[in-house]
């Protein structure tokens, strides 16, 4: 093994999009057998850099060097041929096809006459799935899997080829802790085989747990590389955002108001059963559970997107039936949905129009939309949430993932809801913005909003909630106040073990 030769190297990469200089002279290298973290705020250019490496974007300037030889990556196929495997930030799967076909997409084993060699395909796939310790098999249809399992299928692709380098772009965003452990094992295996790994994540604890070195990008510029063992969170954060971050919980004390939302015995088919809880004004309730526990479906039901099969919903003490999001909005409920691209945004529309979409009927000057008021609203929330965009005319589809998420949050905050439901509000959001959003959530509660936070990140739930609902398989297992909750009893609850039952 030649120690000194990097598995791959990027030199002076420049990439501009209309109106945005996404990468500005970035250089960066990965050694064989190294786990190299790439960090930076939302929109710093991490995904763009990796897309350049993966042959999806052509750089305007700069070189890619593999094995000390400069190469031109013209297509993903080319990148793959050079041994670069790319596990994407957004799921990139064909839902109608089987797990095996997805894992080997683009390189299905062949027999004569171009026939698929099904036997080999399933054997190889099952071998990989076994390593990943997942509960589905090679023939399962990908569309039938949970999001987390789909993510595992995505990860499985890293194991199909003799990779020189593997890029993981936020692979853990929708994984449970158990699955994360598997992922980290996989990464350790690859590392042991001398594969260079680039790992992108906003989660500090992961970064410090598995990486060897950390490179930081800010506003498209390279800020430096540090050895993980020789640095700490503060230093990284400072490199990323150029200042120190105060992560302590805002201790705003405030009065609890009336019960804003009360739910009694709510059920919806097989998704969840017999859910009862209440939220007061001024209170933040955290819903925690494994992916698939049914939290999103509760939110969707409260927002009128699903018809409950049983149970009652009370708003301000009044029993209410909510048949559509329009109903829900009229009654003061807002939902920041889980899937920002699919559910939260119209990507081909500009920032302003996205932000004011739910209230476009109310922002009227005569029969017309009052564009002035719209711009005012946009400006207000851009400043408040620190949304990075050249202006309101920018199409939302051209923003980075994190900034897109902030547009969605701004859209629902500007409705001044009495009940605000946020589903995975900080998925894919950088640390700086994340703490801003957490503060914002606390702040909203302080101003008398009732807030429900659904999250798969335990620190987040622990950090923002006044009390926590632990769910397992469509049922509430236990509720905790912030005083009684610990990591241990929370994990027990969401795994289906309650103290009563365990006893």
């Amino acid at each position: 093994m030649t120690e000194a030769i990097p598995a791959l190297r990027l030199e002076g990469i420049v990439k501009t999009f209309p109106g945005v200089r996404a990468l500005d002279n970035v250089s960066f290298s990965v050694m064989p057998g190294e786990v190299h973290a790439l960090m930076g705020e939302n929109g710093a250019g991490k995904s763009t850099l990796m897309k350049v490496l993966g042959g999806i974007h052509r750089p305007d300037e700069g070189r890619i060097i593999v094995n000390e030889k400069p190469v031109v990556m013209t297509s993903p196929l080319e990148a793959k041929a050079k041994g670069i495997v790319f596990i994407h930030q957004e799921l990139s799967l064909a839902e109608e096809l089987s797990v095996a076909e997805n894992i080997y997409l683009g390189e299905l084993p062949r027999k004569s006459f171009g026939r698929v060699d099904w036997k080999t395909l399933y054997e190889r796939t099952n071998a990989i799935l076994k390593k990943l310790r997942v509960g589905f098999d090679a023939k399962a249809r990908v569309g039938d899997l949970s999001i987390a399992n789909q993510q595992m299928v995505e990860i499985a692709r890293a194991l199909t080829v003799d990779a020189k380098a593997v890029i993981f772009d936020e692979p853990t965003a929708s994984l449970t802790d158990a699955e994360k452990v598997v992922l980290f094992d996989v990464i350790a295996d690859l590392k042991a085989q001398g594969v260079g790994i680039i790992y992108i994540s906003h989660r500090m604890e992961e970064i410090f747990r598995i990486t060897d070195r950390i490179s930081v990008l800010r506003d498209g510029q390279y800020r430096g590389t540090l050895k993980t063992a020789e640095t700490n969170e503060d230093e990284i954060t400072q490199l990323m955002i150029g200042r120190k971050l105060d992560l302590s919980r805002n201790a705003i004390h405030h009065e609890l108001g009336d019960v804003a939302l009360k739910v009694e015995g709510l059920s919806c088919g097989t998704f969840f059963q017999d859910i009862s809880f209440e939220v007061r004004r001024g209170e933040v309730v955290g819903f925690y559970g494994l992916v698939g526990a049914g939290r999103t479906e509760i939110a969707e039901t409260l927002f009128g997107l699903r018809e409950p099969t049983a149970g009652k919903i009370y708003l301000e003490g009044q029993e209410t039936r909510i048949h559509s999001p329009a109903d829900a909005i009229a009654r003061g409920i807002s939902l920041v949905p889980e899937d920002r691209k699919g559910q939260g945004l119209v990507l081909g529309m500009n920032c302003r129009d996205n932000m004011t979409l739910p209230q476009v009927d109310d922002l009227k000057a005569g029969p017309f939309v009052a564009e002035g008021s719209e711009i005012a609203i946009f400006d207000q929330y851009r400043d408040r949430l620190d949304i990075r965009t050249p202006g309101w005319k920018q199409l939302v589809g051209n923003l980075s993932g994190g900034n897109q998420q902030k547009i969605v949050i701004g859209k629902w905050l500007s409705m001044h809801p009495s009940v605000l439901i946020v589903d995975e509000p900080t998925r894919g959001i950088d640390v700086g913005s994340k703490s801003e959003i957490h503060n914002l959530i606390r702040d909203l509660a302080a101003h008398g909003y009732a807030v429900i936070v659904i999250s798969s990140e335990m620190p987040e739930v622990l950090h923002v909630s006044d009390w926590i609902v632990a769910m397992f398989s469509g049922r509430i297992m236990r509720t905790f106040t912030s005083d009684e909750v610990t990591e241990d009893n929370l994990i027990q609850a969401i795994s289906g073990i309650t103290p009563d039952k365990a006893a």
Partner: protein
Amino acid sequence: MEPGTLSTALKRGAIWGFIILELIFFSVAGKYLSLSDKAFMDLDNMLLLLKQSAPIGIIAMGMTIVMINRNIDLSVGATFALSAIVLLDSMTWPVFAGLGDFVIPVAWGLALATGLVLGALNGLIVWKTGVDAFIVTLGSMLGYRGLVFMYNGEQPTSHLNWTLVDFAEADFLGLHTPTWFLLAVTAAIWFLMTKTVHGRNAYAVGDNREAAVNAGIRVGPHMMINFMITGFLAALSAVVFYSESGSVNPNDGELYELWVITAVVLGGTKITGGAGSVISTFGGVLAIQLLRKGLVHIGANTETVNLVIGLILIAVLFLDRQLNIKGKEELKV
């Protein structure tokens, strides 16, 4: 049993159930309404049905592939006509004068090559420009039709070669020549789509094009090949049909794209790509042909046929949707 298995089975079998319903209905109604002494389900009548399904059916197999690919080809009718012109006209070209009846395979080859080229042109434009296939082929549907007219003005192009006619009218083991072509094409495309890498990639490309690109499938050439197959099959359909009829009007094949798409959709191929089956398309073709034939058999006139076929198409779409609904707790979007 997993939930949804029943509805999946229903969906898969739906087109065949529909065909059986049609057969029963027309046989019974035909007894009272038809002037014909022969039963609808008469063997000869069914064999004729297969034969008459061939022109639309052969093209429908190609359309199934492009639709699984999440593309569409609206130019098949014009390709059909242009290939037919090449087929018939090339037999009269002085260069081939010495060939005698050997001109036939040459003319066939030229016609099929025409289809390939026209399909390749569609595919190339879709690939290189990134313009949606609907728009590209809407354009070439006009453009190819323009070429048809350029060829011979508004006159029909004709050449009767009785050897060719006799071959096309022949039957072998009781099946007509066009029927053999239809069956062979169906089998070949079925093999392609279910057994080969190209076929499986076609599903992946239609299901999630970006994923396919990311996985390193060369999506552009892949789609182009499928357009070429479709062009080829449109030409093959013309070869089979015009070998027998010997004359093509410049507006022949107009609206074929609509019939073909109708058959493919009846067969359950999703217009949104990624799903579909060649065998079900075959069912869709038969169902349409049965419907047309049956309606005429019971004495319905043109206007009724139009009305009924239009409404049936919508009804099938509606039923398909009902079968897909999981329950009232489904997400309302």
